[in-house]
C-alpha cells in the first residue's frame, strides 16, 4: 500500500446527464510519478473523467480530492498542467507567437500588478528548451505543424512547473513520426522530471511497453497495474465491443 498522499483520490464517482450514466462508481488513486494511459471507446467517458478531475464538470455524486483537498477547496491549480484535445487545432489567425503561448502558463502565478519576474522568464525559457521549441519562439503558432503545436502546448503547461500533466488525446492532428517523438518526451518528463503523466489515447499498441498503469474507461473503470494483461485481444473486445483483431489490424494500417 502506498502511504504517500495521492495527487488524485477518487471515490465512488458517478456522473450522469439526465437519465444517462456517463461514469458509474469509479474509484482510483493517482500517485506522484505515475505514468497512466486512459483508453476506452469514444463516448465511454474518458474526457468527462478528465474534466471532472480538472474541476470543469461537477460529479453527480462521489468524492474527488486533489492533493488531499476537495476540488472546491483546492487552489494550487498551477500544480496541474492540462493539454486539451483540441490543443493542436489552433485558430491560425490568433495573434500569438510561440513565446506568447508558453508565457500564458505563468499567468495565474504572476501578481496582478507585477511585471514578469526573472523566475517567470527562466521557467518559460526552460519549458521552451525542454520541448525543443525555443528556435520557434518568435513564430506565429498558427504557422506551425501539428507536432510543433503539440510541443508548444506542453511547454505552456510545463511553464507553471506542474507536478502532474494531464493530456486529452494529445496526438490529434499529429503525424506518426512526431507521435513517437512525443511519447519519448513524455517518458523523459516522467523519469527525469518526476512529473506524473496522465493521458487519454487510442494508440494502445504504441504505449503498451512504456506505461505503468492503464485505466480503461467505458462508463465503469478497470484499473490495471500491469498494462500488458489488458492488451489481450479478448479484453479489448470486451472494452470496445468490436472484434479486437480488426482493431489491431486497423492500427497497423496507419
Amino acid at each position, binding site marked *: 500500500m502506498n502511504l504517500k498522499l495521492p495527487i488524485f483520490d477518487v471515490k465512488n464517482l458517478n456522473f450522469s446527464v439526465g437519465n444517462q450514466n456517463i461514469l458509474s462508481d469509479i474509484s482510483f488513486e493517482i500517485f506522484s510519478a505515475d505514468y497512466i494511459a486512459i483508453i476506452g471507446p469514444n463516448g465511454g467517458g474518458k474526457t468527462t473523467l478528465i474534466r471532472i478531475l480538472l474541476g470543469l464538470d461537477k460529479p453527480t455524486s462521489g468524492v474527488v480530492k486533489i492533493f488531499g483537498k476537495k476540488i472546491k477547496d483546492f487552489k494550487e*491549480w498551477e500544480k496541474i498542467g*492540462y493539454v486539451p484535445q483540441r490543443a493542436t487545432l489552433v485558430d491560425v489567425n490568433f495573434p500569438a507567437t510561440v513565446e506568447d503561448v508558453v508565457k500564458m502558463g505563468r499567468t495565474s502565478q504572476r501578481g496582478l500588478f507585477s511585471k514578469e519576474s526573472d523566475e517567470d522568464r527562466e521557467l518559460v525559457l526552460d519549458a521552451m528548451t525542454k520541448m525543443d521549441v525555443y528556435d520557434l519562439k518568435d513564430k506565429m503558432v498558427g504557422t506551425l505543424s501539428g507536432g510543433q503545436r503539440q510541443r508548444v502546448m506542453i511547454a*505552456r503547461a510545463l511553464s507553471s512547473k506542474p507536478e502532474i500533466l494531464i493530456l486529452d488525446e494529445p496526438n490529434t492532428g499529429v503525424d506518426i513520426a512526431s507521435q513517437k517523438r512525443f511519447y519519448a518526451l513524455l517518458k523523459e518528463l516522467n523519469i527525469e522530471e518526476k512529473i506524473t503523466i496522465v493521458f487519454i489515447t487510442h494508440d494502445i499498441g504504441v504505449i503498451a511497453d512504456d506505461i505503468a498503469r492503464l485505466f480503461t474507461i467505458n462508463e465503469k473503470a478497470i484499473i490495471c497495474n500491469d498494462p500488458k494483461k489488458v492488451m489481450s485481444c479478448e479484453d479489448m473486445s470486451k472494452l470496445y465491443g468490436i472484434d479486437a483483431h480488426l482493431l489491431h489490424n486497423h492500427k497497423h494500417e496507419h
Partner: protein
Amino acid sequence: MIEMLSYDFMQRAFLAGIIIAILASVSGTFIVLKRYSLISETLAHSALVGVAVGLVAGYNPLWVAVIISVLSAWLIEYLRANFSLYSDAVLAIMLSGSLAIAVIIVSLGGAFNNSLFSYLFGSILSVSSADVITISFFGFLCLSILLTFSKEFYFIAYDEEVAKTSGIKVKLLNFLLVSVVAVIIALSIRVVGSLLIGALMVIPTVSALQYKQGFMKTILISLVFAIVSVVAGIALSFYFSLPSGATIVISVLLIFIVSLVINKR
C-alpha cells in the same frame, strides 16, 4: 489643421476622440479575439436606452448611458453563462430589444430631435468640457483595468477552459471585461455615435490581425489605426460638416481595405 485646432470645441473633440480610440482599440482586441464582436453593437444600442432616458428625464445622457450599458452587459453575460442560449442569439435579442425601448422612450417623451441624431451618429460639436472630464476619468479607470488584466484576458481569449484549469477566475473576468466594454461604448457615443461605435472597436483589430504579428504588436497596430482614423475622421467631419461617427468609420474602413490588400497572399 492649425485653424481647426484654434476652436475650443475641436480641441475637446480631438481629446475625447483620441481617448476613445485608445480605449476602443485595446478593449476591441480582446472582444474580437473572444469572437464576441457583436457585443459592442448590442451594448451601443443599450447605451441608446440610457441616452433616451437621459434626454427625456433631463439627466446627463452620458451618465445614464454608462449605467444602462453596464447593466445590459451583466444581463448578457448572466444569460450566456447560466442559460443554454446561443451567445449570438442573446446579443441579437438584446440589440433589437434595446433599440425598440429607446425608440419608444424618445417617441413618448418627444425627444426625437437633432440632439438624438448626434447621439446616433456622433457630433464633434456636442462634446462639452464636462464630457471630456467624464471621458477622461472613466477612460483612465477602464484602461487601468484592461492593462492590469491584459494577460488574463488574453489567455481567456486564447483558451477559456485551459485558463480556468490554471486557476484564473474566468467567470469574474468575463464579467469585468464586458463591464469595461460597456462603459467605453457609453463614453464613445458623443464622438462616434451609438450606431457606429461597434466599427471602431472591431475594425482596427481586424485590420491589425492582417499583419499576423504577436499579441503586443497587434494591440499597438490596432491602437495606431484607431487613433489615425479618429483624427482623420474628426478633421473630415470639420471640413465637410458631416457626422463625426460616419467619417471616423469611413477612415477606419479604408485602413481595413488597404490592410487586406497589402497582406493578401
